[in-house]
């Protein structure tokens, strides 16, 4: 499984990329593989304020619907509209074009998130 070192991770399998104080969120390679082919996504609207750990999106494969939790508190800036017509991007590029939403974090600290090494250790071998 691919787990890039420059990202932060939630135990619930979301990743967070922080660049100049702005956040971008998606699901990990492990998560997309476990879900298998994604066929539908429901994403948050820009402007919505969310708490860390709040359900903000849903990713559905043929098998099941899975809740996506915000890794940080903040305000949603943008959702990835491309996923509506091509949800399979989540499977093909989980850390790239398959991102879910961008968020303006309420505070610079990211409590409770894991490094790539720590996250990898939570996965079944």
């Amino acid at each position, binding site marked *: 499984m691919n787990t890039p070192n420059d990202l932060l991770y939630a135990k619930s399998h979301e990743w967070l990329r922080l660049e100049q104080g702005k956040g971008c969120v998606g699901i990990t390679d492990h998560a997309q593989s476990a879900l*298998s082919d994604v066929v539908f996504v429901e994403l948050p609207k820009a402007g919505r304020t969310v708490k860390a750990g709040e359900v903000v999106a849903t990713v559905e494969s043929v098998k099941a619907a899975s809740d996506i939790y915000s890794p940080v508190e903040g305000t949603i800036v943008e959702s990835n509209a491309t996923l509506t017509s091509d949800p399979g991007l989540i499977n093909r590029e989980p850390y790239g074009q398959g991102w879910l939403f961008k968020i303006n974090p309420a505070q610079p600290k990211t409590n409770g998130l894991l490094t790539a090494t720590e996250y990898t250790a939570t996965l079944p071998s």
Partner: protein
Amino acid sequence: MSVPVSESPLNSCHQALGARMIPFAGWNLPVEYSGLLSEHKATRQAAGLFDISHMGQIRATGQGALAALEVLLANDPAKLKDGEGHYTFLLNDHGGVIDDLFLYRLRPDDFLLVVNASRHAEDLALLSKQKSNVSFVGSPGSTAGMALQGPRAPAILSKLIQGDLSNPSIPQRNHISNYTIAGHLVLVGATGYTGEEGYEFFMERKAGPKIWGHILATGKSEGLLPCGLGARDSLRLEAGFPLNGQDLSPEITPVEAGLGFFVDLTRPRPFLGRTTVEAQKQSGAPRVCIGIQGAAGHPPPRHDYPVFRGDQRIGVITSGVPSPTLGHGIALALITAPAPPCGQDLEFEVRGRRVPAKVCHRKFLAKR
């Protein structure tokens, strides 16, 4: 309560193929190999091979076997000839479904019941109460089973039995026959759970891995793929087939489930659950099973979502899936009778929000 997990006799085959395994009805089984969508598509367009070793294989033998089955089962076992099978139910006193199963008559005093893994032990306990010149044998885990399904399945089976000169022809729909495949005696019944042509193979446990490998190798040039429980579920729902524990349960009768056809009331004698089913067939059941189709661009229907007509909650979705073949959601729902006509607008509730849907025929692929 902790339930011991049974390993399939084909477990080593699944590991070698890199399958992702999940717990199912007390078993550890493959949910997918190459991916649910590719496996689903292979079964619709070529062929798929499924491990069904978790399904119970119970043999009813003895001079009293037919009489015992007549008392227990809802379809009339006396109508079967040697080598024939049919879909039937084991009902409770209230006409609810304990199990839905396939019954084959192998010989006049030898029947094979293929039952759901989740009900296997319960079925065996209930069947074994009949003691008059009949014995029921077949404990969980003692056998292996696999299903070969898809438009290329007949061609693959023809190749598999080429060397068996004693039985040169493949079985017709709902028939079963003995073959020697890869040196092992295998019962092959022409039925399945995908809506495609296909066969189910039944054999002793230790023959499983060899037969599995032999079928996969033989079918490779026909496009055969190993398929997991994920594709099995999306395929069966597209075909409108019920899943025990969701679309069928001890609280749901076959008439409510839209499967009253498989309860035979033309015979004179009583059988378990007859009174309720007979009354419902005559004057209607309080609930009916309908097909529902969702709309593209909306979340797909899923098990347990509430169903609404206007402001009125009329029932619940028992099985739902985004159909890989059709590209929109499909579902079976159990609602208050009477059934609305096909095309009527309904809604179901997803995560607190109402989503539009329409009533449709439950054989979702029929009008392809």
